[in-house]
């Protein structure tokens, strides 16, 4: 049957089960939009900036585990999208970006809105494609989904010139035959050695990361931990994999981690690293990290093995399968001495909690206690992000979305939109800061248009708080370019976008609106005025070892 390239694109997306696509039309992707307008299965979400479209797709992907799809036009459409791609690469989020390109006859001529999309996206995607002929479209898209979702997930970009979108071919749809499974590298012998090492260890710690969520291995990790009484510590990206109330869960590791966790790592004689990659924010000074411990590293990506820390034993492969096989080989143990020691550390060196009642940490914790376990919490980047990571009582996998690797301010609002669209029955809360929020504020229009169940809490301290904090601590209080001379009235801005908005300046006002924040089911913006002198503690100074925490 004769079909246009653009129609094949949409048909293939439908075949892959895509129901939501975010994007912005423009000169070079209009044929795709024309075909999309006729789809009865796919809903298009019109973002207001391509970066927003990218993060909406991420919000869908991070909550469902399926690749989120976004569309942009050539030139500025592509350059605007790049940040969201790089963000997805560093946090291993499956995502498909389809970009229009100028017509083949204009390629390489510096045509209007032409950029080297392939070259620009190459280092920040898991893989990228340039399509030369409409007959490649279906197969390439099938491959793209497999690449994005298999092994260590990541973003894939497909660049398609306008004439290829318009090209009419005699099209016969094929079966999706692409299968990409990463080469696994482990065997029974490795499992046996791993089990022996764990059984023999006196002070083991399970160090989990975002890979546990991607592999959907939370249950296996919990069973392993319980059977052999191994304390679990998590990176920022792993939060939610294990309930934060679980007696064996000890908290977050690293720069703003719990003191007891960083001390526990110092004491450990074995760390079992699962789905984590020894990021510098997690390890602090690498040479001083877990000095007494031998290392077992289990990860889907072989290139992470021995990249930062030399391992004593590794298993490269699917976590869910490996841990599943390991569990029966592990002895049941109560580890009374080690558990007693870790309990003592937890009691004596807990995550510091502010004494003031009107404090972001207190607000975040109280909201967490009230919301259902399956609520989805999104943050932007900065102090509010760390307060949320430290104090929100996460219960479920994929309930916490945050830009961990790239640390992108502006991530929060569009990611929350994606989460709300993909999870219409769940409560979505965005904790953001006034600095971050301004970086993608235009997407408030989308929140209003789709009447999304998002409560936006802007912790407004009228500054770039994390920058100011580092200037205070490490640059002799030389505050430069970190305090805003003018901060807009977010309450009015929200209203300008047709969203119910309020401002809270003290405990009394907070009490008045607290139930509303929990119960609201429609867009709600809360500007929560924050004391600009508050800092995030503990903090490990950059380049220092994790036990050199500044606690106040």
């Amino acid at each position: 049957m004769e079909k246009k390239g653009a129609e094949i694109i949409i048909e293939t997306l439908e075949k892959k089960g895509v129901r939501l696509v975010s994007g912005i039309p423009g000169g070079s992707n209009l044929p795709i939009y024309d075909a999309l307008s006729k789809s009865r299965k796919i809903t298009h979400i019109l973002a207001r900036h391509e970066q927003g479209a990218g993060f909406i797709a991420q919000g869908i992907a991070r909550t469902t585990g399926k690749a989120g799809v976004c569309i942009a036009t050539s030139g500025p459409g592509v350059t605007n999208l790049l940040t969201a791609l790089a963000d997805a690469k560093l946090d291993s989020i499956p995502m498909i970006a389809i970009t229009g390109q100028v017509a083949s006859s204009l390629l390489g001529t510096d045509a209007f809105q032409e950029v080297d999309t392939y070259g620009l996206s190459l280092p920040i995607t898991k893989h990228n494609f340039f399509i030369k002929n409409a007959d490649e479209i279906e197969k390439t898209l099938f491959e793209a989904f497999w690449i994005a979702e298999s092994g260590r997930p990541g973003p894939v970009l497909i660049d398609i010139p306008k004439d290829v979108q318009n090209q009419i071919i005699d099209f016969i749809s094929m079966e999706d035959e692409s299968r990409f499974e990463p080469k696994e590298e482990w065997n029974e012998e490795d499992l046996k050695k791993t089990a022996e090492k764990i059984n023999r260890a006196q002070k083991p710690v399970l160090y989990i990361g975002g890979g546990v969520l991607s592999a959907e291995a939370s249950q296996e990790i919990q069973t392993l931990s319980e059977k052999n009484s191994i304390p679990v510590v998590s990176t920022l990206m792993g939060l939610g994999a294990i309930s934060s109330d679980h007696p064996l869960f000890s908290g977050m590791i690293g720069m703003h981690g719990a003191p007891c966790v960083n001390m526990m790592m110092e004491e450990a004689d074995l760390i079992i690293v699962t789905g984590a990659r020894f990021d510098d924010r997690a390890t602090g000074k690498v040479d001083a990290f877990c000095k007494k411990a031998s290392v077992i590293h289990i990860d889907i990506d072989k290139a992470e093995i021995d990249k930062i820390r030399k391992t004593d034993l590794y298993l490269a492969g699917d976590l869910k399968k490996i841990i599943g096989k390991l569990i029966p080989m592990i002895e049941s143990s109560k580890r009374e001495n080690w558990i007693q020691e870790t309990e003592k550390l937890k009691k004596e060196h807990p995550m510091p909690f502010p004494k003031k009642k009107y404090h972001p940490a207190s607000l975040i914790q109280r909201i967490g206690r009230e919301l259902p376990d399956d609520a989805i919490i999104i943050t932007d980047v900065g102090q509010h992000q760390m307060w949320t990571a430290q104090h929100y009582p996460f219960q479920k996998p994929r309930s916490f979305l945050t830009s961990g690797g790239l640390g992108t301010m502006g991530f929060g609002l569009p990611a929350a939109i994606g989460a709300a669209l993909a999870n219409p029955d769940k409560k979505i809360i965005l904790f953001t800061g006034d600095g971050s929020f301004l970086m993608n504020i235009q997407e408030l229009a989308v929140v209003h248009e789709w009447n999304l169940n998002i409560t936006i809490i802007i912790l407004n301290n009228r500054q770039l708080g994390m920058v100011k904090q580092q200037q205070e601590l490490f640059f002799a209080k030389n505050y430069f370019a970190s305090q805003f001379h003018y901060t807009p009235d977010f309450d009015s801005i929200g209203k300008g976008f047709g969203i119910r908005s309020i401002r809270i300046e003290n405990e009394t006002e907070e009490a008045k609106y607290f139930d509303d924040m929990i119960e609201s089911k429609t867009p709600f913006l809360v500007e929560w005025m924050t004391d600009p002198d508050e800092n995030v503690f503990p903090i490990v100074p950059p380049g220092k070892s994790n036990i050199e925490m500044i606690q106040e």
Partner: protein
Amino acid sequence: MKTAIIELTVRNHPGVMSHITGLFSRRAYNLEGIFVNRLKNTEKSRMLLAVEENEKISQIIKQLEKLHDVLEVSLRHDEKEELIRKMDEFLT
């Protein structure tokens, strides 16, 4: 400096060189030399990469293995010296 030769079999298309050289530049690995040729009657190319043989080499190989267009990777030890000498002769 000791030189090692990494041999790659890759899918032959215009973007593949960028993928390989891009990997070296962004991971700050030094690339001393490249030799590429299309394999007759196939859609594949063979690449020989001359790199400094140091402790980073296993990480380079693992990163290369991850590239979708890279089909095979090996570290060549056979007639390595000969190869480098010939390349040297040819180019300088």
